[in-house]
């Protein structure tokens, strides 16, 4: 089973690298979905099947589809790819890569001191639910409010004023 974990890790990292280097948004999204699926698999392996499934349903199945939906609506095509190519000159990668590498090395160096192993104890959805609606009830309420706010915000943001054309009058309708 450990080998599965490492394979999934490699898949996740590689596909994430692909995400940030793709020129075509749809391709990048697909790689991101692959990455998320790999991470979901990792979650499953280390004993969080509930979260693994949620990762697939919500992240890969809903959020990413929403992304795809928007990309398709914009329907950018070849021009966008050309533009990306122009923007992504090789030189631009150097600075961020070095900075991120420093950060990563610092992180790894920090983690390197601990040498405890994860014992994959399966945590059932029931346990998660009991804890979620027990000590974390307030957090659930807050998350609900956040979601409500985002629904309202998203609705308001994506509302577009359309021009209603008529032979005699021209007025803006909601």
């Amino acid at each position: 089973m450990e080998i599965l974990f490492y394979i999934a890790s490699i898949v996740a990292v590689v596909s994430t690298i692909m995400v940030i280097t793709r020129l075509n948004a749809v391709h990048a999204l697909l790689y991101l979905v692959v990455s998320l699926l790999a991470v979901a698999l990792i979650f499953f392996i280390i004993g969080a099947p509930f979260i693994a499934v949620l990762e697939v349903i919500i992240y890969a199945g809903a959020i990413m589809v929403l992304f795809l939906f928007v990309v398709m609506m914009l329907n950018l095509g070849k021009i966008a790819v050309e533009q990306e190519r122009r923007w992504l000159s090789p030189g631009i990668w150097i600075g961020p890569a070095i900075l991120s590498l420093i950060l990563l090395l610092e992180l790894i160096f920090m983690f390197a001191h601990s040498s405890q192993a994860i014992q994959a104890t399966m945590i059932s959805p029931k346990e998660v639910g009991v804890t979620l609606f027990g000590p974390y009830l307030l957090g659930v309420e807050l998350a609900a409010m956040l979601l409500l706010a985002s629904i309202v915000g998203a609705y308001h943001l994506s509302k577009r004023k359309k021009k209603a054309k008529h032979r005699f009058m021209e007025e803006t309708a909601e």
Partner: protein
Amino acid sequence: MISIPMEFGLILAGTLFVLGLIGLMVRRNIIFVLMSIEIMINAAGAAFIFAGAKWGEPDGQIMFLFILAMSAAEVAVGLGLILQIYHKFQTLDGDTVSKMRG
């Protein structure tokens, strides 16, 4: 029964996070920027899961649930913004939306 070194999980999460960070710093297209942010959020959540798994407690998963809710909200609003920006500027170049600077 499997046994994976704790630091490996954290390093994986850190690597994913840093990759998202690179994307954030490099890309100009706001869709890619949003995607990079998603990668980073997911990586942060993964770190919680690893930590939770380390102690065998469900709390890490709870935190991931909250992160999930937060990221869903963020994506909804973010995509709405992207649509508006595209309609207004006919481009997805994040640098065009710099009117509020200084």
